[in-house]
């Protein structure tokens, strides 16, 4: 039997020590009426047979499409050392570090990850990660609800609609009032957002760059929201934070991010990495694992999980959240990636992607009838208005091996003609030229 080392002789010896005649006696307490009605599974296969089957399935997926598809999830290059280091068994097969003396490697790596997250987002404290960027945003919102004891949430429509749908799902039984403030041509309506915040508001939720790739400065809005006693929550694209005004500089109370772009493969949607950072005063509202530095009995530096009194295994139904795990191995990928890139490598990549996107915009604007949805500054991604429905273009281009972008009509009624186009360092100027040709042909 694969992975079970016991020989029949050894099993016999073990049964004798237990004092029972056979394996069935181990399950005698399960009444006959509770026995399975069926267990109709296939026969086991050899390792190579399973792999052949999975290779066949993998080949049915087309990942060779030249992609300008982002929408919050990006195909960035991953240095080989990331895979190499994070696949070490001592990291991959370890458990949650409840016994810190046996887990200093994981704990120190998380401590370094927390430090990097705080420095990148310019915030004071970070947790050891949650499932994904959407969960991070939801948890941030719940932090604000607990902290302010208010129930109204103001959300910018420019926040990733995938995350907004998750917020809707999680709050369906919680009697929170969600107010969504409509976008204005792909930009945040700062006046309307400001007007929506009052002394009943627990939090205002915004995103930078927003879902349309547009850059915003929320400093003024955050000052106003704070004067009303609301918390400021911002979701960001972490790789771009090396060059953009930070959540801290804008006055955010909680910053969240999807960390996928920091060395994690797209992997059809997961596992990803939910990053969370906050101001000092909010740390006891923060969900999930947090690693702290301390000393051992001999005065040597060491690391432990800390503030555990917030957590479900201690507080049960009174815990800050029900989250029990973090994404330790994904967080490890992110810290290794950030170390390899360094501050300049990260800034270079962010700049390079933005430069390509601006180049693409300039080229594509030459197409007849094409224009930008927003006239405001953008980073690595932009929304292009076409004279025809975007899905029509998608159909034509995917057949030619091109993924031209994300058709915004899927989430934004009225924007059926708009295509969201993202660039990473994996795209080339030549690809952009071909995209222009093909788009031109499809219009």
């Amino acid at each position, binding site marked *: 039997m694969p992975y079970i080392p016991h020989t029949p002789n050894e099993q016999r010896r073990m049964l004798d020590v237990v004092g029972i005649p056979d394996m069935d006696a181990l399950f005698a307490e399960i009444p006959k009426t509770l026995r399975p009605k069926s267990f109709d599974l296939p026969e*086991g296969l050899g390792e190579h047979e399973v792999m052949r089957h999975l290779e066949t399935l993998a080949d049915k997926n087309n990942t060779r499409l030249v992609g300008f598809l982002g929408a919050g999830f990006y195909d960035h290059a991953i240095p080989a050392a990331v895979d190499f280091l994070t696949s070490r068994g001592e990291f991959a097969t370890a458990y949650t570090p409840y016994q810190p003396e046996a887990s200093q490697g994981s704990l120190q790596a998380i401590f370094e990850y927390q430090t990097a997250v705080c420095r990148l987002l310019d915030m004071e404290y970070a947790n050891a990660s949650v499932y994904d960027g959407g969960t991070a945003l939801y948890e941030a919102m719940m932090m604000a609800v607990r902290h302010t004891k208010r129930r109204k949430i103001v959300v910018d429509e420019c926040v990733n609609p995938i995350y907004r749908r998750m917020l809707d799902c999680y709050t369906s039984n919680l009697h929170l009032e969600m107010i969504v403030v409509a976008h204005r041509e792909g930009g945040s309506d700062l006046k309307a957002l400001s007007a929506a915040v009052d002394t009943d508001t627990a939090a205002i939720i915004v995103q930078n760059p927003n879902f349309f790739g547009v850059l915003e400065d929320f400093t003024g809005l955050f000052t106003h929201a704070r004067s009303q006693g609301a918390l400021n929550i911002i979701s960001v694209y972490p790789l771009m934070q090396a060059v953009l005004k930070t959540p801290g500089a804008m006055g955010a109370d909680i910053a969240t991010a999807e960390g996928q772009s920091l060395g994690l493969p797209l992997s059809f949607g997961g596992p990803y990495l939910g990053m969370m950072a906050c101001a000092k005063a909010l740390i006891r509202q923060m969900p999930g694992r947090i690693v702290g530095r301390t000393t051992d009995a001999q005065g040597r530096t060491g690391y432990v999980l800390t503030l555990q009194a917030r957590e*479900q295994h201690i507080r049960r139904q009174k815990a800050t959240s029900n989250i029990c795990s973090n994404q330790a191995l994904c967080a490890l990928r992110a810290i290794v990636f950030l170390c390899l890139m360094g501050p300049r490598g990260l800034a270079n990549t962010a700049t390079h992607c933005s430069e390509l996107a601006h180049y693409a915009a300039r080229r594509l604007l030459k197409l007849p009838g094409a224009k930008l949805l927003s006239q405001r500054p953008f980073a690595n991604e932009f929304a292009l208005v076409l004279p025809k429905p975007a899905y029509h273009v998608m159909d034509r281009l995917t057949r030619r091996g091109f993924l031209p972008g994300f058709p915004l009509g899927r989430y934004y009624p009225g924007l059926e003609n708009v295509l969201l186009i993202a660039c990473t360092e994996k795209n080339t100027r030549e690809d952009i030229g071909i995209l222009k040709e093909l788009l031109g042909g499809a219009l």
Partner: protein
Amino acid sequence: MKTIFEQSVSGRPGVGLRELKKDLTGLIPQELARDGLPCLPQVGELDVVRHFTRLSRLNFGVDSHFYPLGSCTMKYNPKFMEQAAALPGFSRLHPLVPQFRGAGHFAQGALEVIFETERLLCEITGMAGFTVHPMAGSHGELAGAMIIAAYHKDKGRKRTKVVVPDSAHGTNPASAAIAGFDVISLESKDGIVDPQALEAVLSEDVAAVMMTCPNTLGLFEQHLPRIVELVRSVDALLYYDGANLNAILGKMRVGDAGFDVVHLNLHKTFGTPHGGGGPGSGPVGVCERLVDFLPISRVVKLEDGQFFLDYDYPKSIGYVAPFYGNFGVYLKAYAYILRLGREGLIRVSENAVLAANYLRKRLEEHLEIPYNRICMHEFVASAVRQAAKGVRALDIAKALLDKGYHAPTVYFPLIVKEALMFEPTETESLDTLDQFVDDLIAILEQADQDPAAIQSAPRHTPVSRLDEVKAARNLELTDNCGL
């Protein structure tokens, strides 16, 4: 060990992309740009490789150490599963690809993985429908609790309470509370749920009862048929915490036994790596009458064998994940199930339960075992005898670290004093189990003769006992870099 930030030298280049010809000027206006660079480590690639290789060596993992950690099922993680998840056809696939009209055929293989994984999990558990969307076990609990809430709401009734036995994992009450329910804690009797006590708290206000079976004491819930009857009588739902599924593969299907909702921890029973705390994957299964409430999207197989994403479930609770859950994790579990097959999965439970009972028998003269009868895949011992001499469960746990074992779970479940919870799993050889017992007995003997030696353990780990009070009181959560 120095942090990677402490090894940083200003101006040292990383392995980032080629140097830029241009800067940001003209792309991003000054007022939207960052003031200076973030303080990230400036280290060479070899520095990074050495640093994290050294860190890895400070860790116990299943690949390096025996991990008898109760309720966590720390079994061997087969290596070919890593290769499977790394296949570029999966790892490079953008999750939005199949969401566009006409682009579904670009992701047929991945959709088939989802469809087949859900189908296999249905057969293993006897449930009518499954979703792989929840991203961890406790996330599955939350999704399950939300499905329960949606079911009662759909029936037009207000159910505000969820009953959770005191032996349950802390995530159970937390998940129920986060989903908006009030939690009623139920006291166990003789280590299992007492039907009379359950009957006393059941009412038309109760939405669900959350059970773990075998429970966290490693005991089978013998009154299960009666419990099912009681829960049915008030039309509440019965939830199954799948943390302990490793004990019952092929021996009991929770659907057949009367459970309405179940979550599984794929990193436990199905051998995907724990990753030092994550990522996990916590699929949720439901009985027929709850299928309509599962999260969207769902993968449907058409008559021509093609797969597509279906969103047309008006009663669905909605989106618990951005896409389809932790694909890279349940892909490994799918590979594991195909590798082991029917017989293999049955043998998993038989050998896991045998190993736990073997360990229990070999330890029964040395440790107090409060419920000393045939256990399932784990059992709880108590260090009360040792504690009387000043050596507590935690001390024994730390002494085990010195001998090169990860410690068992300690002080859980809360209902056993000085609890030490052992779960050997089916993948540890008899030699390993015997050596472990010998080493543990040596520790217990030393605890008798020289308690101080055990109280000061561990001494051979990279650090000795850490000051957790100081860590919480004097919060130091980041390195000094940039401050």
